[in-house]
């Protein structure tokens, strides 16, 4: 490591200026704005924790919290398992494997907004080709996004369709970085199949998996576009995720204080999760330097 009186600060200055203005100031603003409320004349008045108290008493807010947590507790492990399975499948070089590797990340090119629109058409109860196929094969049509009981699961599957290939790349790179000798010695010891995967591959994949868990959680935690475009939080609140609630408060009901309070709670939850996740990076930092 080198030392220099000012060079390192000059090098980090532009990035930190950006992070400060566009990340840290908004965080402060959201805490600040959450203790104000607009009165009938349109002035902002200090109201203390009233916005929070209102949220705490609001059953629809608790529903949002519950849906968001359930959504994340299922989708993140699920997506990572799918991504890991894909990575294992395309790991060994063989015929056409490059085609599959490229093909599997193609859903990345469909933006989250387009993914939402396209899948809502594909899964439409009457016009959708998926239900057309189901009926053709002798099954009953499914309501998917139109049903209170299927909407959230469908949302998870659609988000996984888009995301699994992307996270596969990071896991694949981890798999490819495993030295060949380790694999060979495992074979000599007679470890094959699932045993080899659990006792040898998985421990070596700890760091890529930690990275993907962190990045995937950040990507999914506040999923917005599909809720905004497809379900509008429905049916009956089944897909009312936190970010959509904050958006509605800010732009549909123009309740500034409430939206800032929701934003602040979101930031608090995210920060708690991030604190846990920072631990995942710690051992990595130690064995590196």
């Amino acid at each position, binding site marked *: 490591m080198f030392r220099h009186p000012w060079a390192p600060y000059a090098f980090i200055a532009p990035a930190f200026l950006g992070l400060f203005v566009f990340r840290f100031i908004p965080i402060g*603003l959201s805490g600040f704005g959450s203790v104000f409320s607009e009165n009938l004349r349109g002035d902002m008045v200090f109201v203390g924790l009233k916005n929070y108290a209102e949220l705490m008493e609001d059953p629809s807010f608790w529903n949002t919290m519950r849906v968001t947590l359930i959504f994340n507790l299922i989708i993140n492990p699920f997506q990572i398992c799918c991504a890991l399975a894909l990575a294992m499948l395309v790991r060994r070089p063989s015929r056409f494997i490059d085609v599959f590797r490229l093909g*599997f990340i193609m859903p990345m090119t469909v933006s989250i907004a387009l993914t939402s629109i*396209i899948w809502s058409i594909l899964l439409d109860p009457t016009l959708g080709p998926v239900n057309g196929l189901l009926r053709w094969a002798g099954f009953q049509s499914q309501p998917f996004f139109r049903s209170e009981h299927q909407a959230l699961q469908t949302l998870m599957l659609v988000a996984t369709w888009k995301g699994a290939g992307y996270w596969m790349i990071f896991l694949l790179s981890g798999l490819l970085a495993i030295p060949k000798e380790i694999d060979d010695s495992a074979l000599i010891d007679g470890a094959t199949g699932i045993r080899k995967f659990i006792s040898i591959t998985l421990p070596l994949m700890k760091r890529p998996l930690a990275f993907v868990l962190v990045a995937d959680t950040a990507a999914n935690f506040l999923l917005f576009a599909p809720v905004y475009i497809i379900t509008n939080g429905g049916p009956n609140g089944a897909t009312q995720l936190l970010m959509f609630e904050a958006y509605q408060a800010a732009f549909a009901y123009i309740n500034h204080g409430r939206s800032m309070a929701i934003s602040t709670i979101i930031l608090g939850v995210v920060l708690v999760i*991030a604190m846990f996740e*920072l631990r995942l990076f710690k051992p990595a930092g130690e064995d590196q330097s």
Partner: protein
Amino acid sequence: MSPRLSETLRYILLVSIAVILLTPIYWLIMSSLRPADHIFRFSGNFSIETLIPFAFTLDNYSQALQSNVGRALLNSLFVSLTTVICGVFVNSLAGFAFAVFDFRFKKLLFVLILLSFMMPFESIVIPLYTLMRTIGWTDTYAALIMPEVAGGLIIFLFYQFFRGIPREIYEAARMDGANWWQIYYKMTMPLSGPTIATASLMIFIHQWDAFFWPLVATSSERLAVIQVAIARNMTMEQANWGAFFASASLAVLVAMVPFFWLQRHYVKIVITNADR
């Protein structure tokens, strides 16, 4: 299981997954080439025509390009490419500092960077909008570009790569009298091709994908990016489906370009990116 059998099984799995992942994209592009009144004619009742169009037309594309979609595509390209250029520069500078120097508060600042990428961007969208309104940036390109330039994930990516460059190289350059800026842009950056490519791809696809922030930050038609324009056309015109499928296909095809372009470096890029 014999190796032959397990290999066959593997390919069966590979092909079925590819079918699930690619069919929606195929269906999108194929539908865009159908006459508008054919798009849903075969979709609800499954037949061979559901999958293969018997009538072709490019009408949907000419219709889409005559609407606001042409401008929206250019807006998205401009915003994405500008962010890529600024983002690669700003974040590689910071990654370089963390990889090469020891300085006061380094640990603390690094934790802030990790936190900034663990924090979903959406979580600050609403307060960020308040900030933009205060400084008068709503409805400007700057509002679309500037917040996405500095990013913890990209700093981290560069940092990981720069750490791997042996310090002897820097010592030799210092002996020759090079200053740190010269070392950064004449030595380190030219060595970092694959990392720059990966970072560019990640920034590009992130900005191309962006929907929530552009929706909130810009309200005028003039500044609509492609994702927002498509979503707005859907609701405003009671869905002109032909134009929708054509503009969505265009948005997807443009996003495919960097993926195919970087395909040759694909595995190499990936290895440099996470093996350390």
